[in-house]
């Protein structure tokens, strides 16, 4: 961690049930974890409200390590069989990021598309009529190019109906997007 934001990581679990039985709550399963808590519904690791800034943290307490477990919201809730272990390290120097999104909205993008997107817009990246236009720009600090990839934590790439769009580059700004495969 070396950024000034207050969100760090998102933990996710999958549940094959639908409806309430498939909704998941996330909990930290380690006692006396300093500074951090978890958003119960999204699984995002966040800085606790009573921590004013990262500079107030005691660096000797790092790395901070804790367990996260998931529990569905069914009537007799079921626990995750595998817990996630989260380790947070403290980095003194504020390193320059090798790449940055040109638009901060790419950090958390929500896109609504029709299931017939491929038939309607063959070989075009996913976009909305009004809203996200399909291009994802990032700038690099180096002259060496870097790919942008699309992946899912739950689905193998071969079964995922989305791919990254071929990268184009002008100077140090690259452009990619998300393409529907079928």
């Amino acid at each position: 961690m070396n950024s000034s934001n207050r969100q760090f990581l998102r933990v996710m679990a999958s549940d094959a049930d639908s409806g309430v039985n498939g909704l998941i709550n996330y909990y930290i399963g380690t006692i006396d974890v300093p500074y951090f808590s978890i958003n119960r519904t999204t699984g995002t690791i966040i800085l606790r409200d009573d921590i004013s800034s990262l500079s107030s943290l005691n660096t000797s307490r790092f790395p901070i390590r804790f367990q996260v477990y998931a529990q569905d919201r069914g009537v007799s809730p079921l626990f995750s069989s595998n817990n996630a272990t989260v380790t947070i390290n403290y980095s003194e120097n504020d390193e320059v990021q090798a790449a940055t999104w040109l638009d901060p909205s790419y950090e958390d993008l929500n896109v609504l598309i029709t299931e017939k997107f491929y038939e309607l817009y063959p070989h075009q990246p996913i976009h909305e009529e009004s809203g996200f236009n399909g291009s994802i720009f990032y700038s690099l600090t180096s002259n060496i190019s870097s790919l942008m990839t699309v992946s899912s934590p739950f689905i193998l790439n071969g079964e995922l109906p989305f791919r990254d769009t071929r990268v184009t580059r002008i100077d140090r700004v690259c452009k990619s997007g998300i393409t529907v495969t079928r």
Partner: protein
Amino acid sequence: MVLRLQGKIKNQNSISNLRILYIYFSGLHAEIQKIYFLYIRVLVNPPLIGRVTITLKDENDQIPTFDLRSIILSVMENEEGNRTIAQIQAFDRDIDDENNHISYSLNTDLTDTTAGQNFHVENDGRIWTDTKFSEQQTPYRLFITAYNDKLAWNSTKNLTEDFQFDIQVISNNNKPPGKIFQYQ
């Protein structure tokens, strides 16, 4: 990835449920998965990561489907009054209610006039009659169309499937056996 569906056909004597498994392996179908959670990752060190949530809007692309395409049923002779003789039910894999709602009607192009006059089809797939039949009647054949009220996503037509229905008249057991002869 597996999608489970259920079809049903029902008549006055029996109800049978037919369970069918449909298996898709890939492709963009709201029927398989409506929300995708993805990571976009620029491959630098440390990686630059973004989160993308893609929600699919269901379109009316699935056709109403019958598990069985035809059935033979019987009606008793000499019965009177309004009576339901069967209810047929198709299913539609679309996930939005407006896309999977199915209505039923008599296909008057294929059904002959006599059959059409004696049997009536309700919106919900119920077939009823108020005719008093006699035993010598030839069988009737009805054709019933299952259709989505909403038009298909890419056309001005309805998505439909037809069902063929044969109805035969059977006699009541109202005649005793004949006289018994005794041989010596």
